[in-house]
């Protein structure tokens, strides 16, 4: 099992990219679980055909602190297990603490042992703003982190903040950084800007997602491009990215064996 946390500036396309990678891996025969760590609870909407996933924190509140796996999971495209943390009413409560509570519950319910996924993706809200949002990076949770960024200045600043956090956590045995995915916004010299950033930081650029109208077209139908048109050029890019993650995982598995 490989657990990957996906970080990046808000609105940069983390959920879209994560869902597309999840979908691509599922078509390759892997069992995948995607966990949305965002109060908006919309990470997996394109995997479930728009069917809402009951947010874990809402269920816990309704059931006075209890919830079963059946109540908090929805089986999405190609058997992908979809979970959403949910969170507090905007402006109230503590979303970070909510993530901690969800992770504790998944552990108590033995979610990973029961579903036995090959890949788990944590789609994390924006930046590592506090302890709760660093939870997926903790020892025993994600094995590695991926940062999604565009070439825009604010996105690169957010990516840099996330890298700093991951670096600070090294002493704690937290997840390391697997690499950066460029999600193009069509700005000038975008590839150059991001390549320069990754080279300076000493991290690998593991994916380059071009702007493609098909992504938005299929999203209006609550689908990923993989589900919508698996043979399209943009789907092929996601499949290649998924294959590279799977290949790395397989190499590591063989090495550790």
């Amino acid at each position, binding site marked *: 099992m490989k657990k990957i946390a996906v970080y990046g500036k808000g609105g940069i396309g983390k959920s879209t990219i994560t869902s597309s990678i999840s979908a691509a891996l599922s078509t390759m025969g892997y069992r995948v679980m995607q966990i949305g760590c965002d109060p908006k609870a919309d990470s997996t909407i394109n995997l479930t055909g728009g069917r809402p996933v009951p947010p874990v924190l809402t269920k816990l509140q309704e059931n006075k602190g209890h919830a079963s796996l059946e109540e908090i999971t929805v089986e999405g495209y190609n058997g992908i297990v979809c979970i959403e943390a949910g969170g507090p009413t905007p402006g109230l409560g503590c979303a970070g*603490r909510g*993530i*901690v509570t969800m992770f504790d519950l998944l552990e108590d319910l033995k979610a990973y042992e029961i579903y036995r996924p090959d890949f788990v993706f944590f789609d994390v809200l924006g930046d590592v703003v*506090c*302890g709760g949002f660093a939870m997926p990076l903790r020892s025993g949770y994600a094995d590695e982190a991926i940062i999604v960024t565009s070439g825009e200045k604010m996105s690169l600043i957010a990516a840099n903040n996330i890298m700093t956090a991951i670096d600070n956590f090294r002493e*704690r045995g937290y997840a390391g950084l697997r690499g950066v995915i460029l999600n193009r916004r069509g700005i000038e010299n975008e590839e150059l800007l991001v390549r320069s950033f990754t080279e300076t930081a000493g991290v690998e650029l593991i994916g380059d997602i071009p702007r493609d109208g098909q992504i938005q077209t299929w999203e209006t139908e609550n689908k990923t491009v993989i589900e919508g048109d698996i043979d399209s050029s943009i789907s092929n890019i996601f499949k290649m990215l998924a294959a590279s993650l799977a290949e790395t995982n397989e190499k590591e598995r063989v090495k550790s064996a």
Partner: protein
Amino acid sequence: MKGLLKILPPFAPDYSGICSVLFELDGLVVIQDAGGCTGNFTCYDEPRWFGSSSAVFSSELREMDAILGDDDKFINRVREAALKLNRKFIAIIGSPAPMVIGTDYKAVAGIIARKTELPTLYFDANGIETYEIGISMANLAIANNLLIPNLDGERSGVNILGATPLDFGNGRILKDLKDLLEVNGCRINSTWGMGSGLEEVSGSLSASLNIVVSWSGLAAARLMEQEHGIPYVVGLPAGESQSTAFISRVLGKKSVTPASGYANDKSILILGEQVQANSMREALHFDSDYSNIKVASFFAMDEDFMQDGDVRLESESDLRRLVRDNSFEVVFGDPLYRRFFNKIERLYYLSIPHVAVSSRLFWKHDFSLIDGNWIEKLKRSEYLNPGLLVEEPIYEDLKETGLHDLS
């Protein structure tokens, strides 16, 4: 709001249970709190604190430390204290504030262990769970981390698991247990949580039996049976016949259960820690003719040791319902539970202080389970004053506090 206590004071929390188990083990015990949680433990939950040299500290977590997640300050303070004090291990314990900000104790303990080169235990306590959960966590941590392998394979003697002043107050019940074991030629290797230092406790794998004296010792006993093949017996000696049966179980001899005679169906409630309450029920069965006895507790109960009609109470309203739905005539319980029975006109109430409930109010009081006087008193009272309200002496203390009369 179901768990809101309107009449009873807050029960001893999980961190107090953990500190209590570690109290005599010469560790550096640090609660990550602003000071109130540590103060709660030292002033209200720990009779041994006064005059002791045990190293239980507060990290003095401040608002800005929590907001900014300044774990380094905590780590460095613990490191400095460890350098100054010659302790054998470190334990860091959570409390409500770090729980809310999701402090990663595992990571922090790892860093402290590397910086101090001392074994560092961590406890994700939150101050919301009650004391017995903390005792159980600490006993499991001992079983998992502090036991020395029994290399020669020879096994003899017993360990006592699940004891702390939170259940055993001044220790009279434990002393009676130990005396009984020794009189019967049974050597005591260690008493976890109350009476043994680290050396004795860490040598526990040389024992041939664990005696579990409260629910809090069960998880560690089960782990030690599973991983080290040490069997366990659950219970405490109470009254003459039950004590004989108990020691027979400890010694692995067959015991003859006294035949119960005429059944007195007077409705009895034992309100307290499950293992102690069960032993009392057994004693009443053996040494009297009472047969209609329920056990209820605000604290964890193991299903394997529950009988039909036993109740795990989750709120004061659960206790009110239990009292309303049953016509209890005899009740054994902490003095502070007395008020729930005020409307019952004909009641025999024997107060047995439970430190986790009434804290220091009655912790000086002696109560012996083994001598059976509590059974004799009940029988005598019924003979002399059938159907009359009887208050046992300790209730006079309660009257002095005024706590019985709040309305």
